[in-house]
């Protein structure tokens, strides 16, 4: 998967988890949870979706890497290059 596809995928996953939120203006460099109503259980849903859809296991120590869209893409890109 390429960077842009990963970004689209993440937004799609977030939309599924918090369907009431408007994601059209989500900024890449600002903490996602500061832009939309999303709590820690929702965040764990993102982790679970990555595991279910792509068998990507994000260890707890790496959770911070998923805090913004940009950092998520940077973190996932090498892990999803063959997907």
């Amino acid at each position: 998967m390429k960077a842009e596809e990963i970004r689209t995928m993440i937004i799609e996953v977030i939309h599924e988890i918090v369907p009431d939120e408007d994601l059209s203006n989500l900024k890449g460099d600002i903490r996602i949870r500061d832009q939309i109503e999303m709590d820690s259980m929702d965040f764990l849903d993102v982790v679970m979706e990555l595991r279910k859809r792509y068998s990507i296991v994000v260890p707890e120590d790496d959770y911070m890497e998923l805090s913004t869209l940009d950092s998520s893409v940077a973190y996932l890109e090498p892990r999803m290059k063959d997907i």
Partner: protein
Amino acid sequence: MNDNTRIVITGIGLTAPNGNNLSEFRKNLLAGKSGIGKIETHYMGEVIAGVCDFDPLIYQKKKALRRGTRAGSIATYCSHEAIADAKLNLDSVDKSRIGIYIGITEHGNVETENEIYNIKQYDYNVDFWSHHHNPRTVANSPAGEVTMNMGVTGPHYTLGAACAAGNIGLIQGLQMLLLGEVDLALAGGVSETPGTFGVFAAFKNEGALANHPDPQKASRPFDRDRNGIVVSEGGCICVLERLSDALARSARIYGEIVGYAINSDAFDFILPNAERQVECINLALKKAGISASDIDIISTHATATPEGDKAECQAIKKVLGNNSNSYINNTKSFIGHTMGASGALELVGNLPSFEDHIVHQTINIDNLDPECALKNLVINEPKKVDKVDYILNNSFGMLGINSVVIVKRFKG
């Protein structure tokens, strides 16, 4: 009795397989309209069941639906509808003085089965087990969802009481008002049971799951050919208030809860016990300070199992004697067994009789079982009567839990 020790029903919110508010529910009861159909379940395929078609998004966000449970959604819908029906504005009442008391037959089966079904596709790897499982399955979950949705900060909990739970939710609300613990109770019961294949499978293997080529004829209490229970979902939440508070705000009063009782068979896991049912009914009559001959309508619990219906009929015959003028009906024949909701739903479907003097019928009796041939059993057509002053509602459950609620017409 002082007005602050008398408890009245001032609002009703409900969803049933044949109606999403009291007027629709009542209209369909009088019209003989069943709400039973077929649904798909895990492992068992198509089964006969009753499900509700209210729109949960009226009161909940999509995220809340995703995070919560069907029981929580039903409880939230019914609670809002009850508050609106009572003409209360949530913003102008002290939410710390509202108590939420919701009867459940079971909770957590649906959510647990769904998780097991989910991890099956991952070779039972529990890394795929949802972190939402615990908050969804704690026993207070349906009531807790209501508090979060409505911002209620008073006490909330569910009452696990098998199929007697709907009545027991009402009784708990009444008792908390009498104790002065709360000033307003949202009380009743809910069921999400059609979501669990396990309940269907267990009833089937016990020989107690209804079967009929026409789903709408499957729930047939008192019929000679009845063959078991139709599992349904539903909910009914009542606003309960002290009479003094209700009068002070000129609230509409559906009726006053004047009698109630709960007892135990101490007998068997599933079999009913007519003797204990008689005792429970008599306890409720005593609390109401009336005799059996004062009861105008008995809303039966009968679930259409061969033994259960017979036992309740024996109990009613014993209580009423031979010279009774009480009319007798059954709501499960229309909507199936709404489990935790059934006690409250079946009671409120009869409350309009105080005003219209019509007793709704029991449908699906083609051949009345002679052992269930109660005098004044209202069969297949509604019955116009001269007066309705007292309604008695039976609700019994597994492990031998019996409950009875008596509501009196409010004369103002």
